[in-house]
């Protein structure tokens, strides 16, 4: 911190004071830069040139043109300093130059757009803190994609599963590794590993980790990702040797296939009327968890039975859901079965459908198969 402050030049201690109206306008400029940063991560210079063509603010347009032509951040800064139009600017113009240069520097460094937005809006003052959070949240809501996976063979995914049994252990490893190494290591892990790691960094930090891992997946070679994983594993080992971790037994993060088949059949055997009645006012988190224990055909059936608004709510809950042990998914499935039974009875659903739901409600893990069958049989009598 002191090192950063000590490197400031005399002029950098003075911060230009701009009007609220000007800063509001600059917030929009910052948002545009963040969106260009998002696109340029995928489409490179093409995105910069396209953005320059439609940009109305002169400093940003010039900066984007220079960046599209291959100029680095320092070269753009020097070009601004040498531009007669930018010498002796008014406070509002000076602030615009600062925000633009900070944005272009982050953009060229391929910084995540959310972190970049925080950097730029900080120049506008703490009054823009909440507005920035709202902007990031609105971008998060529109973000519904899952990147392609690249799984580099190794023990890291298994270690992450074990660490996730004690979230503090996983958190300690990820923070000790640092964001860059964690993202590089995660670039070669299955989505499940990322889903376990994301909550450690919070709602926005988790998305940044996921996006950075996806970004690095397309930039690093398989060997580089394997090296990052080896370094990450070394950190885990050293923390473990120092007694700072609790590595648990591996846990299964998927529901029993028998249970999945049973719950899927039960859901598919119900008509829309029963499903709609059962899902009225249901906790989205419960339904999202239970759906982790169903096949895709049952997901389609459920989503088809929901109103658009509820469907959106459910999809959000699914996106926010953390990976859970199979037992938690099965418990949610049983709770859902109870609701479905009540709705099915009220709608006088066929006996066969009720039997299937009862079978789900009474299901017990492998090893209790005969007990399950016995209960099902008695339910039919």
């Amino acid at each position, binding site marked *: *911190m*002191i*090192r*950063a*402050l*000590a*490197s*400031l030049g*005399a002029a*950098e*201690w003075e*911060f230009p004071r701009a009007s609220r109206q000007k800063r509001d306008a600059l917030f929009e400029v910052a948002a545009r830069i963040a969106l260009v940063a998002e696109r340029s991560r995928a489409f490179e210079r093409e995105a910069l040139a396209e953005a320059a063509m439609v940009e109305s603010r002169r400093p940003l347009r010039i900066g984007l043109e220079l960046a599209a032509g291959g100029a680095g951040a320092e070269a753009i800064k020097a070009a601004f300093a040498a531009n007669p139009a930018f010498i002796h600017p008014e406070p509002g113009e000076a602030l615009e130059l600062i925000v633009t240069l900070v944005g272009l520097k982050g953009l060229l460094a391929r*910084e*995540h757009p959310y*972190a*970049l937005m*925080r*950097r730029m809006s*900080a*120049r506008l*003052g*703490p009054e823009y*803190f909440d507005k920035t*959070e709202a902007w990031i949240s609105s971008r998060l809501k529109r973000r519904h994609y899952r990147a392609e996976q690249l799984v580099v063979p190794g023990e890291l995914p298994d270690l992450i599963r074990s660490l996730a049994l004690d*979230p*503090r252990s996983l*958190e*300690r490893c990820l*923070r*000790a590794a*640092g*964001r860059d190494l964690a993202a590089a290591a995660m670039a070669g892990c299955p989505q499940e590993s990322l889903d376990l790691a994301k*909550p*450690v*960094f*919070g*709602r*926005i*930090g*988790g998305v*940044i*980790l996921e996006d950075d891992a996806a970004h690095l997946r397309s930039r690093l070679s398989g060997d580089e990702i394997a090296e990052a994983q080896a370094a990450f594993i070394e950190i885990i080992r050293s923390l473990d040797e120092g007694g700072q971790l609790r590595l648990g037994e591996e846990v299964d993060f998927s529901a029993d296939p028998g249970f999945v088949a049973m719950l899927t059949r039960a859901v598919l055997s119900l008509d829309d009327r029963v499903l709609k009645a059962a899902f009225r006012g249901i906790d989205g988190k419960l339904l999202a968890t239970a759906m982790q224990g169903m096949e895709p055909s049952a997901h389609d059936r459920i989503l088809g039975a929901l109103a658009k608004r509820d469907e959106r709510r459910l999809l959000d809950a699914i996106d926010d859901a953390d990976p859970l042990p199979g037992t938690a998914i099965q418990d949610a499935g049983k709770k859902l079965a109870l609701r479905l039974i009540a709705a099915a009875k009220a709608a006088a659903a066929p006996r066969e459908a009720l039997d299937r739901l009862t079978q789900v409600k009474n299901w017990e893990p492998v090893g209790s198969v005969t007990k399950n069958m016995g209960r099902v049989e008695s339910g039919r009598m």
Partner: protein
Amino acid sequence: MIQWNAELVRRLSCREEEKRQIAPLIRRFMELAQKARGEGFQSLDGVLSETDDPLLSLGLRLVLEGLPEDALEDVLATYLIAENRSGWPFLRACVIIEGLLALAADDDPATVARKLVAYYGAERAAPILEELERDPLQSAPAKEET
């Protein structure tokens, strides 16, 4: 290497009795570090409602939000410079930012204290560190406070 910066030195300078107020801040950040390491970072969410310091509050929100460390430092330093503080308010803000960065780095309480006692100045920091090595969690800040 840290460069000599006359403006920074001017802004950091304050009276000895003002510097004594660093002690409760150090203790606070040691407690927060212990809480984060013991209960997880998201447990710091509860601390937000207890603090009325805007810089600490915004900084904690950024730590919880998961902003990468270099961006966190940049954002907080920008707020600090923009407010044009000097003397004790500037020094206090520096200690808060350093504490937040230590929290984000998942430092243990003793490391947090080592980082923050530096703001007492070289002569005063050394004896405090000696005590800290004997009793990492409490002694140094507690003695300074009295």
